[in-house]
């Protein structure tokens, strides 16, 4: 599904190039649940953004379902990611000016889904996440856990093949975090590929494979059983 070859990412200002990612290659197959771990500043989020086509690598090749993403223009990339990839962020990133319902509807608007169909899709996902009663509230009127649930619902409404989650439980208390991870687990069992970035060993334990990044390089890539966090 995802194949990265010799990915570099650096920022250059007047005097120096700062490398965020250095020469990383990686393959993720459909149906996997992958965790990316590493200390702050290791380049985890950048790697995730590159996979999500939100950011482009400074050099290297990226194939998504065999398509050479690194050769596509911005418009084509948007076209590719908006139908297949859902994003979940640590700070939810709901649009404050829109209600829950409208937030969920927005991705469908960008896919030009017809009004009737949109309505039923939003209703369905609201039901699935038991949020129907909250559909007319604005994000600030919800608890953190509920906001994150809404954000996940928004990511799922396009029925993505891949979910990219950047510290999805980072702003939540442990009970809320647990709930979110359960949702991810169910999604993964239903066939959705998930890549998450996390600091939490406990969250990592939900996944099958852990990639460790240190100073912009993948230093370890192994199944959970071998890394040994599953037991705890």
């Amino acid at each position, binding site marked *: 599904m995802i194949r990265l070859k010799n990915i570099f990412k650096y920022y250059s200002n007047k005097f120096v190039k700062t490398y965020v990612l250095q020469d990383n290659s990686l393959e993720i197959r459909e149906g996997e649940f992958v965790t990316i771990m590493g200390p702050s500043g290791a380049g985890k989020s950048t790697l995730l953004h590159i996979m999500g086509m*939100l950011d482009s690598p400074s050099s290297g090749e990226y194939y998504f379902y065999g398509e050479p993403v690194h050769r596509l223009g911005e418009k084509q990339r*948007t076209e590719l990611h908006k139908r297949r990839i859902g994003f979940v*962020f640590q700070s939810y990133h709901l*649009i404050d000016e829109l209600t829950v319902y*409208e937030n969920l509807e927005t991705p469908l608007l960008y896919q030009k889904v017809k009004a009737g169909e949109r309505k039923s899709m939003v209703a369905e996902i609201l039901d699935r996440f038991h949020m129907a009663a909250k559909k007319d509230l604005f994000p600030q009127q919800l608890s953190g856990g509920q906001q994150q649930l809404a954000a996940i619902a928004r990511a799922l409404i396009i029925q993505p093949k891949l979910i990219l989650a950047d510290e999805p439980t980072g702003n939540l208390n442990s009970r809320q975090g647990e709930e979110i991870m359960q949702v991810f687990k169910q999604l993964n069992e239903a066939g959705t590929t998930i890549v998450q970035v996390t600091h939490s060993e406990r969250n990592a334990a939900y996944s099958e494979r852990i990639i460790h990044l240190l100073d912009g390089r993948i230093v370890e890539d192994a199944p959970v059983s071998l890394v040994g966090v599953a037991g705890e």
Partner: protein
Amino acid sequence: MVKNYLKIALRSLFKYKAFSFINASGLAISMSVCLLVIMLIRDAYNFDLFHPQGERVYRILTDAQRKAGGQESYASSPYPVGMALSQDFSGIEAWSPLVRSFNGAFRTSRKELNMEGFFAGSEFFKLFGFRLAQGDPATALAEPQSVVLTQETAQRFFKNENPVGQVLENNWTGSLKVTGVLEPFPGKTHLEFDALCSISTLPALERMEPDWNVTENWNNYYMTYNFVRLRPGTGKEAAEAALANIAKTAYQGRELEARDAGYRFRLQALKEITPGPLLSNSVGRGAPAMLLWFLTVLCAIVMASACFNYTNLTIARAFTRTKEVGVRKVMGATRGQVFGQFMGEAVLTAGLALVLAYGILELTIPFFKRLQFLAFMDVTLKMDWVVAGWFLLFAIATGVVAGLLPAAVLSKFQAASMLQKLQNLPLFRRVGLRKTLLVTQLAVSLVFIVLLTIAWRQMSFATRENFGAGRSDILNLEMGGIPYDKLAAEISRVSQVQEISAASHLMGTWRDSNADVRASRADEPVPVRDYFIDHRFIPNFGLELIAGENFPENPAQRRELFAIVNEKFLERFRLGAPAEALNRVLILDDSSEVAIRGVVKDFLFKPLSYSLEPLLLRYDPAQLRVLNLKISGDPQAAVAALENIWKTLGSPAPPEYRFYDDTVRETFSNLRDILWIVGYFGAIGILIACLGLLGMAIFTAETRSKEISIRKVVGAGPGNLAALLSKGYFLLLLIAVVIALPVSYLAGSQLLQTFAYHIALDVWAFLPGVALLFLLGAITVGSQTLKAARANPVDALRKE
């Protein structure tokens, strides 16, 4: 999709009330004047649209080539030129000359009223779209001694009687028979008249006065407006070529006006008359195109400034929107969609501004209607669908212009970077552009204020120094055709009238009269401004005779004998010292010889835009037109007494009088109107600049809230913080002042150059503007910085 955008646009407008207010009101204020100008322009293009095949109607213009070099363009042309064109050139379908000077007092058996109008050709109704309510358009202006009245004029003369067939008497034209009454004009027209007299009346009048000829005089390009309609398929160029031929044969060997080297004739399309170029001898109303351009440029400056603000604030505020943009991009929005969203918001804001602007416009229209020159242009300022359409289009265009840059900038960013730390975005490091915009706004406003200060002071100076200024004790009374000695004798019975003098026309006004003066037969004549006065004028106005004597009283004088001149006159004609010049003989207008009887000390007898020139004072009771009454005591009582006496004198018209200082004020009323307009634009400019400043201050206070909090935690007081935050703005203001001062100095000197006598450009021209700018800046910025400095630091730090 659009609904979604609209929703979010409205919600964010409401959420950030302060910014929305600044944006919308800034746009609205400047938009309101632009709307006014749109109305003006629309109005200006409403002239002369009702004439049949008006697109083929032209006016013949004269370019008079001067001997001294250069040329002057006239709206009028010689009568024979129009006639020759209509006879010799086959491409003319209709020709109607309109000859000025058909005016004066006209009598019926019961009434005498003043009328103004034209002698018009018999094809007048074929050429123009004016319609007759009564009478036959084919014959109404055919016979000599026929007159056609407008409905209003007919009403004034004849009330409900049938006007057709009635007779009007006039001293000059004799009896005129009313042959038709016009319908009310179907629309606006640059032609203004109460009545039209058949042009066939003219030859008889010309025979009465040997000096005066219109219909056969090829050099009289002052009196006649020649209108022609070309046949379909006839080009303007062909007609102009025919005109050139006519001119070539007609002027060969002909003696021209003394100052002219030759004449060229060309055609001006009817629709180009109003609005049109400034021409000498223009008739009627309507805005000159130049004025419309001037206003449009002012509008563009003000509007650009308001759009700057929108751009500036929206980019500044982007940090509150970047997250949203990032999220939208993550969810699959393309760049175009984000761009569209921000454009939509800008247009919506502009739409909101339009509503506000319309409100402001409604409030300010009565004020503008009072301006004299608008009244002169026959501006109606009314709403219709076309105007409404233009307003809407203008608002959309404003939205697009204002929103373009922010939309482009905000939609350009990659989603990932939008979601990261905002302070790192290149956008926020590039405050230079915004500061430049702000400084430009401030500098432009300051230039406006300074110029206004200078112009205002110059105008007060000119008004104060003008001849007759402050003479609220002198009442000028138009003699209205009553003989001088009779009127003076009657008026002297009014107890409040201390002294009576008389003149041909008033000094200190724009009115002019010249005499060609020679000191000896061998000299070239030199035109000199002249005034006819009576023997009491000099003492009445306190003019100082430095040599010789005043005119002797001589009501029965048959021939002019004497002249009084000023010092400048002696200089110009090299007549030596005042005493030596006495009794020197001057030749006036080739006809009369007069002796210099006295010399007055130089004084300003024209408005201050004229330099001091030679002056010729003449004595001829027959030329006196206005009495100067020196009043003491209650002016109201004097006026009432005057009115009573006037009634006994048998004049058909009511008396026309005005105090001298009112006349002086009137003299500068156009200038004052222009000052008001520039001042209005200036005020708007300053207001907008202040709004921009306010927006920047709010923005800075917001973005620096963390820094402020930390400084507070380590012990900074509100005073220190306010100083810290304001320092940058103080610098911006200072830069604006440094830029604006030289610019306004240069522009101010240029402005003052147009006055021969003007105020000095001292510090007082600049100080009020600078002080005002700093005051407004301090209030604007201070309010925000103080607020930020007083805030609880914990709130800001918790957010981080």
